[in-house]
């Protein structure tokens, strides 16, 4: 097309031409919102009014008004659930790294939930947790009637049920990542260890775990920001009612339901800071090895 131009001229044209749209999109939809968010967070803006600067008032509200900081507690459920999620994923990834019949079937089935639409999953589990629904029927069949409760009605249970749904949804992702990491361990290491008399447990502790240590810790650290950002499953299933509002649900409601853009921006800024700190820690500790 412009082969008549010198490479030096072409270079400039290509650099500018290829970057201008992507950088424009990046600036408009990734960085400008963050900049605006900082600015809004110091105002009392409701979306229509004049923006009046209120200093740190919004931040003070988030950390002192129990209605707002209470939601951090909900995040803990998702945080601890992630440990279960990692454990299960690691267990199945290890098992399926060795010789197993119908390996591809099990691999596919365990992974498949991750691909599903979040709304579909939310509805599926609304049904599953209903009184006399799927879960209750299974529990009755195996004689565990005693533990049946209103899975989404009981305020002590609701967050466990929702976090459990979250585990069901995301476990397959960790599983496939761990499986990939384990499969990159060369086979002769196992063979050599077998000659030395190692059993499967030894192989797990001394070969598999050390080689995937980094990817496991990386995933665990990401769990902190993941737990704080939990949104879809609880929003779709309960809308945050009955004490199941997470930090993000609270933020979205504050902004779009109650029109407190300034306050919601302060909440978003806080979350952004936590995520950045967590990521910085992760990069610092695991950056070099990656």
């Amino acid at each position, binding site marked *: *097309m*412009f082969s008549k131009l010198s490479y030096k001229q072409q*270079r400039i044209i*290509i*650099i500018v031409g290829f970057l201008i749209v*992507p*950088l424009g999109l*990046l600036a*408009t*939809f*990734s*960085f*400008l*919102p*963050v900049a*605006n*968010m900082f600015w*809004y967070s110091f105002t009392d803006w409701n979306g229509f009014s004049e923006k009046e600067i209120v200093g740190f008032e919004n931040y003070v509200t988030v950390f002192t008004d129990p209605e707002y900081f209470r939601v951090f507690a909900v995040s803990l459920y998702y945080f601890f659930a992630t440990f279960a999620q990692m454990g299960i994923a690691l267990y*199945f990834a290890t*098992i*399926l790294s060795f010789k*197993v*019949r119908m390996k591809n079937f*099990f691999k*596919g*089935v*365990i992974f*498949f*939930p991750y*691909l*599903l*639409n*979040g*709304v*579909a999953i939310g*509805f*599926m589990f609304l*049904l*599953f947790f209903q009184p*006399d629904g799927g879960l209750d*029927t299974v529990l009755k069949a195996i004689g565990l009637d005693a533990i049946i409760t209103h899975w989404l009605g009981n305020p002590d249970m609701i967050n466990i049920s929702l976090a459990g749904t979250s585990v*069901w949804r995301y476990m397959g992702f960790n599983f*496939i990542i761990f499986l*990939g990491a384990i499969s990159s361990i060369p086979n002769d290491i196992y063979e050599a260890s077998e000659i030395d008399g190692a059993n*499967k447990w030894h192989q797990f502790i001394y070969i598999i775990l050390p080689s995937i240590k980094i990817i496991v810790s990386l995933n665990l650290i990401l769990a902190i*920001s993941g737990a704080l*950002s939990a949104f*879809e499953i609880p929003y*779709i299933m309960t809308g945050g009612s009955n004490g199941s509002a997470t930090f*993000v649900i609270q*933020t979205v409601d504050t*902004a*779009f339901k109650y029109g407190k*853009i300034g306050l*919601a921006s302060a909440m*978003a800024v806080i*979350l*952004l800071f936590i995520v950045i700190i967590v*990521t910085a820690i992760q990069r610092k500790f695991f950056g070099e090895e*990656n």
Partner: protein
Amino acid sequence: MKAKYLTGSVLKYASLILGAIAAILPILIVFFAAFKTGTEYTTTGPLTPPSDWTNFENFKRAFVEGNMLTGFKNTIIILLISIFGTTIIGSMVAFVLNRFNFKGSKIILGAFLLATLIPGVTTQVATFQIVNGLGLFNTMWAAIVLYLGTDIIAIYIFLQFMNSISVSLDESAMLDGASYFTIYRKIILPLLKPAIVTVIIVKGINVYNDFYTPFLYMPKSDLHVISTALFKFKGPYGSEWEVICAGIMLAIIPTLIAFIALQKYIYNGLTSGSVK
């Protein structure tokens, strides 16, 4: 020794079967319910299969009344434009950043890196004002520009892959007088094919399953995508779970087909796409 090996084996398969049941059961219950009539749904247990497997009434209702048809149409349009745009944008940026070393190239790379740290859901508070200000609220472009401007994973996938494409290819093409654009179009882009497959898969999963972007920016019912069309079932069909179940199945079936057809690529795509 042998007995111990046997117990281990039994435990292994028992846990695998248990895992498989846990993964399948919630889906199976929905699958059963989707074929049941209203009375059958209320009178039979969730694990009882439907009496008539040819009862497609619920699917018909979900598809037509439930706006799923519009949902599919809009999802496909948004999906195609987003995937095409992501591939073009991602490969262009990767080409320039990988092949040219210029003032500011490090900063630009850093800017794209930094953007992945921003948690998408929360910044919506401010993103909403921008999208609204640009007059994109309640248009498909709201979702499209957000998918193109905020989810930059494609750039990494392409950048990683570009490292493995030898610069000597560019150089020999330049000896033949090819322009930089020709090199990008005729040499780099075709060689990026495996990376493009990865991008299509990662992006495809994200866009098909995304809920909050269409929910916040395209509330108009003509603009519903699969996620939001399904979400709407919650109100009017609140008591008609058999119709909701048919809707859930309609949303799941394309995923299942894609998974069975592209299994290998999906596994590889996710494993390579996740390494940031």
